[in-house]
């Protein structure tokens, strides 16, 4: 099976038998099914946000609490982390050296943590201004949606740490490879959800 025919980018189990390959492919497909069910969860949080948008109960509205600058920086952090994860996938597929993969994963982790730090800073500032989740339906749905995404990024960051440990303990084995592959799908998927969040939440909210 040549690399071009591979079902999933990043999968390169050259020294293994076809059976390992097939197993890896069905696991990756299973992970896609999970990702799509997660997408349904996010879609309903988006729908809730859309319904609640006008329910400010006399409290702060979108124009008062959103900041375009920090949303833009957060977006840049997450976009570049998607690219650095891509570089980790390429290093895994073509070089297979644990050190190179670890460096790119570490860069991705730093960008992800930077994103989380910015988001926490935003939340603390909003809460300090009295825009707490219990203030109105709008703010409840805002925090539910954006912090669910934040928790996913946190989960992804913990997963990166686990994979860094596994890389140093087990080396680049087929099992570790498919785990990093699935982590990659998860990370790129979170980026897609963020495209929805910065458009529907931040940019729409800041449109006069």
């Amino acid at each position: 099976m040549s690399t071009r025919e591979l079902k999933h980018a990043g999968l390169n189990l050259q020294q293994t038998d076809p059976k390992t390959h097939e197993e890896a492919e069905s696991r990756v497909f299973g992970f896609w099914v999970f990702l799509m069910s997660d997408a349904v969860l996010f879609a309903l949080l988006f729908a809730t946000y859309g319904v609640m948008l006008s329910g400010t109960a006399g409290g702060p509205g979108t124009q008062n609490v959103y900041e375009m600058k920090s949303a833009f920086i957060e977006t840049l952090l997450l976009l570049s982390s998607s690219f650095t994860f891509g570089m980790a996938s390429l290093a895994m597929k073509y070089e297979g050296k644990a050190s190179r993969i670890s460096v790119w994963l570490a860069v991705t982790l730093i960008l992800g943590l930077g994103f989380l730090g910015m988001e926490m800073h935003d939340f603390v500032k909003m809460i300090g201004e009295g825009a707490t989740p219990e203030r109105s339906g709008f703010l409840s749905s805002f925090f539910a949606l954006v912090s669910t995404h934040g928790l996913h990024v946190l989960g992804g960051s913990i997963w990166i740490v686990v994979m860094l440990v596994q890389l140093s303990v087990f080396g680049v084995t087929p099992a570790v490879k498919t785990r990093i592959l699935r982590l990659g799908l998860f990370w790129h998927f979170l980026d897609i959800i963020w495209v929805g969040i910065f458009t529907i939440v931040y940019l729409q909210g800041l449109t006069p």
Partner: protein
Amino acid sequence: MNQEDRAEYRRELRSYIIGLIAALVLTAASFATVHWRLFSAPTGILIAIYLLALVQIIAHFRYFLHIDLRKSARDDLQLILFSTMIVLLMVGGTLIVLFNLKSRMF
């Protein structure tokens, strides 16, 4: 790395770089549209940023997640399209039902 692998490597590297540039350009265009109010009507701005987001999501699927029309990615593509249909039904249904209810209550 042999010759074939090297060519493949370059092709994939190019795909990630195209993805990054596309994502940055589309994001910048979205923020610029809102920041400098490139359309006078709010509806114009909203339509523009929604279209840009749609293109960006497709670009992410294509260049970062490697989903395309090639036969090998067909299963994933079908799963994604089916999920998209479910999402549109649920989100669209929620918005229609609740906004209809709201307009009848006031």
